[in-house]
């Protein structure tokens, strides 16, 4: 396996690291492998297992690094699991790896809490033939934390996978979420809501690879950026030549709430099959004045109306989730977060 110290530190010319260089999300100096502790993982809803570290693919520097610092892998057999997993991180540097094996249907929400300086999260899983997994990830880390997240998901024949992310915690986040549709008729729906505030920097890179025919994927990323925050969404959608009759779409929408906020949205498509539907779109805009006027005409102050529009914009990210359990958890937590922000 590739050693981290032997691996080349990627330059900013690499698409993956263009907006968030590895040196800015490494827990120390980039030519070191510091001590990294394990996070506390709890759930009251089902049993968790542990195993020796299941190696992550060595396709990039973040995964190579995590392979060296992870101490074990927490395994979840998703057979009719329904509930919440709480990951608590503290101290200087903490990392954890969760691996899901899904054979039937499950609905799970992961909550990330704590005040670590650095948090490394690896999520991997196999959604096996005819299985269904709805998974929510809520980042509620301290505003001082740096997080690196890598995901690797495999979808097999007739599998259904919904992955929702609510990103509102942490100071600097780099997420690299990859899904491969390996079986025909598999389906992926991915929803991401980002709330940028303060000087928060949030970079989501999403790779979706269609390897088989009759596969579907849908990606929606809604980012609301306030203050001096910066959101980046990059997509890489690949449809192999054999993956005929694929239906894929990527939408990135940014709501810019202050003159100093920034957002990048860069969907990229590589389509090698000729009988497919593949669409992408990106839009960045300030608050819609007609929406603002409408709400103010109903007695809401400008601040209240703005808050309602932002909340709606982010809540709407999760409207397409089929899992009521995951959708309600994401929307409820988001609403509480925004109300706390409004109160200050």
């Amino acid at each position, binding site marked *: 396996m590739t050693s981290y110290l032997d691996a080349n530190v990627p330059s900013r010319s690499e698409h993956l690291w263009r907006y968030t260089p590895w040196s800015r999300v490494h827990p120390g100096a980039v030519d070191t492998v510091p001590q990294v502790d394990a996070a506390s993982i709890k759930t009251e809803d089902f049993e968790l297992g542990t195993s020796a570290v299941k190696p992550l693919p060595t396709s990039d520097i973040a995964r190579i690094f995590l392979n060296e610092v992870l101490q074990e892998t927490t395994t979840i057999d998703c057979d009719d699991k329904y509930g919440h997993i709480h990951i608590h991180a503290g101290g200087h540097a903490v990392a954890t790896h969760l691996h899901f094996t899904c054979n039937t249907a499950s609905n799970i929400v992961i909550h990330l809490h704590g005040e670590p300086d650095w948090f490394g999260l690896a999520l991997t899983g196999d959604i096996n033939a005819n299985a269904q997994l709805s998974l929510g990830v809520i980042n509620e880390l301290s505003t001082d934390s740096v997080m690196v997240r890598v995901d690797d998901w495999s979808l097999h024949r007739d599998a259904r996978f919904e992955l929702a992310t609510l990103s509102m915690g942490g100071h600097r986040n780099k997420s690299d979420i990859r899904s491969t549709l390996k079986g025909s008729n598999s389906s992926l729906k991915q929803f991401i809501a980002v709330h940028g505030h303060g000087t928060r920097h949030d970079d989501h890179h999403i790779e979706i690879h269609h390897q088989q025919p009759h596969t579907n994927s849908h990606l929606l990323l809604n980012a609301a950026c306030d203050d001096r925050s910066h959101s980046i969404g990059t997509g890489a959608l690949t449809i192999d030549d054999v993956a005929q009759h694929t239906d894929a779409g990527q939408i990135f929408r940014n709501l810019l709430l202050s003159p100093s906020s920034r957002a990048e949205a860069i969907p990229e498509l590589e389509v090698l099959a000729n009988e497919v539907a593949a669409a992408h779109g990106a839009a960045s805009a300030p608050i*819609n*004045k*007609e*929406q603002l*006027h*409408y*709400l*103010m*005409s*109903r*007695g*809401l*102050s*400008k601040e*209240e*109306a703005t808050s*309602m*529009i932002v*909340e*709606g*914009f*982010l*809540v*709407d*990210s999760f*409207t397409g989730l089929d899992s009521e359990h995951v959708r309600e958890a994401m929307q409820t937590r988001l609403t509480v977060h925004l109300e706390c922000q409004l109160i200050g």
Partner: protein
Amino acid sequence: MTEVLLRVENLHVSVGDTPIIQGISLEMNRGEIHAIMGRNGAGKSTLANVIMGHPAYQITSGTIHYKGKNIEDMEVFERARAGMFLSFQYPAAIPGVQVGTFLRKSVASVRGEAPSPRAFRQELNEAMKQLDMDKSFLSRYVNDGFSGGEKKRLEILQMLLLQPHLALLDETDSGLDIDALRIVAEGINAVAENTGCLIITHYQRLLDLVKPDVVHVLIDGKIIESGGPELALKLEKEGYDWVDALA
């Protein structure tokens, strides 16, 4: 005793450098229903929007007094809290915001305090029943994917709940079928007794159900003729050509 609710004096309004309203004056008492009719582009919606305080319109001269107070410097939400209401011709969609949540917050803002959940639920149920609206409306997102008729019903539902003193209804009858029009008209009549209503419409069919006290004809940003309900009937029969001669 009659209370002058709205007094518009020699109002001139522009959008950018384009003058839209060119000297309108009108006075409305509490309990009165005024209808404004006119061709497309005559300035009817502009008048409603500028009374409500839409920031895209600039008052270049003239005044608007509501309950005796010049409201030019009042923010839109302050006008709403003071009892003014505009039923929009094209209400904005607010994706992600449920109708129920929106109504509760709106009512709390306008009344200055949140009603108890039980009292609000009862009030809401009664108003929705009056408008023949299904409860599933409440969990939908505000105007998102609504048909034209659904949007207009939601506007009237808000009017019933907010109980305004001055209601500006901008083509509330457009997009409604005959049954929906009757229901919406009943909603308007339910609040009209204690409210001043300014109804903008193209059609007599709404005025058959909501009887106006005064009808104004607006041509090129000016009120050219005012009269009783018979004026609307004459317009329905003869069109606007005869009014052009008066302009």
